[in-house]
């Protein structure tokens, strides 16, 4: 309405802006934010898939074909021997592939003995990823803001950032827990190899999945609050570690019932088939021969407090996760412009 010369006669009255969405996909598969998530964090996806495949593979191996080999090793050296890295994985095919300095990793103990630390490491890894590459790095690069100036609201962006990893974490960690339980039920004595069965046993269950989800939610929240990758990553790593250290052992709510061990029947078997006390020979073959030990047996009795404690722990972790998620959305609102009120509209 300024100078009359500023009209554009060649242009239709109202420019046609309802551009028909042109075909944008040539392949079937996920689209929108899901595609975006999978494409942006492809490396993390590969690492995660690798972790899941390798640990599930090892567990399935131990569940099936590996069980007898492991049993043979135990029968040779006893549980005590296995604990002491007595056979240093020499009976395991994959230990031969590892370089010398990594050979302890190839031992049976390190792979199967400490799933507690395995899942704890997993949670720390998830927390660090969520704080760093998933959120804070995008805030630092400005790509988060870039995504928000496309047709995506910050809230929907955060929903995708949370749900896609949460889904993958739930599925993979859930599978891991299920397979661990399969092995536990079939050859529980192989998993424990001696000490701290409770710590192990209580680390494997629905709370393991909840723990991983909490790590994700806390990492996201830390990144949104701190806005820088390095501090966010450090804080969430430490918190995930602390929560892991509390798990299975020392939750405050456990009170005076801290870590009662699972009842266990552990015996050595002589050539005559009699079950005697484990003489603790370790690698000493002469000692094993002197006691006429030809094998070992171990049986865990069901633990009465497993499910109550497991479910309480799961509930607490899921509650904390939910709090973190709510807090994350509240913090995200600080990034956004004020919503105009209804009255101001039109």
């Amino acid at each position, binding site marked *: *309405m*300024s*100078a009359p*010369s*500023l009209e*554009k006669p060649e*242009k239709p009255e109202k*420019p046609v*802006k309802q*551009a028909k*969405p*042109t*075909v*944008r*996909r040539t392949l079937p598969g996920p*689209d*929108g*934010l899901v*595609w*975006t998530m999978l*494409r*942006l964090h492809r490396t993390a996806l590969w690492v995660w898939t690798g972790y899941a495949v390798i640990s599930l593979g090892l567990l399935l191996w131990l569940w099936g074909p590996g069980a007898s080999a492991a049993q043979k090793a135990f029968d040779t050296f006893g549980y005590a021997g296995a604990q002491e890295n007595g056979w240093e994985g020499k009976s395991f095919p994959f230990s031969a592939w590892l370089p010398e300095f990594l050979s302890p990793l190839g031992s049976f103990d390190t792979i199967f003995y400490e799933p507690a630390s395995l899942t704890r490491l997993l949670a720390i890894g998830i927390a660090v990823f969520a704080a760093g590459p998933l959120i804070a790095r995008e805030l630092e*690069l*400005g*790509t988060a*803001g*870039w*995504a*928000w*100036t*496309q*047709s*995506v*609201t910050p809230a929907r962006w955060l929903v995708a950032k949370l749900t896609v990893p949460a889904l993958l974490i739930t599925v993979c960690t859930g599978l891991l827990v299920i397979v661990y339980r399969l092995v536990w039920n079939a050859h529980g004595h192989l998993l424990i190899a001696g000490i701290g069965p409770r710590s192990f046993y209580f680390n494997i269950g629905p709370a393991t999945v909840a723990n991983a989800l909490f790590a994700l939610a806390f990492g996201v929240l830390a990144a949104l609050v701190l806005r820088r990758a390095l501090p966010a990553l450090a804080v969430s790593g430490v918190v995930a570690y602390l929560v892991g250290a509390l798990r299975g052992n020392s939750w405050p709510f456990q009170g005076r019932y801290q870590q009662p061990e699972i009842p266990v029947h552990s015996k050595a078997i002589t050539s005559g088939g009699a079950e005697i006390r484990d003489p603790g020979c370790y690698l000493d073959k002469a000692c094993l021969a002197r006691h006429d030990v030809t094998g070992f047996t171990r049986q865990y009795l069901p633990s009465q407090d497993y499910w109550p404690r497991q479910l309480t722990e799961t509930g607490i972790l899921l509650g904390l996760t939910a709090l973190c998620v709510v807090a994350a959305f509240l913090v995200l609102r*600080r*990034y*956004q*412009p*004020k*919503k*105009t009120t209804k009255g*101001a*509209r039109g």
Partner: protein
Amino acid sequence: MNTALEATGLVKRYGRHATAALDDCSFRLPEGRISALVGPNGAGKSTLLAIAAGLLRQTSGQLRVLGAGPGEARARVGYLSQDKPLHPQLSVADTLRLGAELNPDRWDAAYAAGIVEQGSLDPRTKVRALSGGQRTRVALAIALGKRPELMLLDEPMADLDPLARHELMGTLMADAAEHGTTVLMSSHIVAELADACDHLLLLGGGRIRLGGGIDDLIGAHSLVTGRGDLSKHTVVESRASGRGVTALIRRDGPVGEGWQVQEPSLEELLLAHLRSPEAPALITPSTASTADRTAVTA
């Protein structure tokens, strides 16, 4: 004429005690304009654009973007920030795909790809390997690929060589010519603006100092040399020149006898206003916010 952007008493303060980046800023940008947003460093240009893009929250006041609140019309608004953030690990082709996935209802794939092709870019190149100009081209392709009705650009051409600048400005102008896109771009380079823009918003001290069609604004001012009384006009800037003065004035009625009158260039107009921050603001009626217009008539 419809309004693309309208600010009413917009205030943005970073931190409680900081001076306001935007201080009671009010204006209206009619649809279809190609407007320059100029002002000294720290005048609030980036702040204004980021609020309009839905990335920052104003402290108080109101901003309407295409008739909606900021952030509510994000599908119809294109935004190019100063640092043009893109994912460095993605290829150009994947970056375009990302644009498609993030703008599912409006994406024009052929158009975006065309803009990238004009720069003879290999779609397989990683974003991190692109030059500044190529990077801006990709970012511009995505911003235009969503077919925005309002395009916000923050110092779009600042770090580009003259050739890339000319090409990309041509691309932008072609889009405006074809689709009637409203454009608001901040820049330091007055020469670049003089040819491309038909509208001007000069920000200073967090407010609009000059606002309106460039022809109208230039037409309202005169560069006069001579001697005599200028008191009935608004003198924006004056300096001694021999025995008389050379002054940039905002005319109120005809200039008296004895003055040599010239039309100022856009650059002269801007520099005079930048040098005289105390000069009163001029906002042409089409650019004044509705609230202000009502206030004037009331």
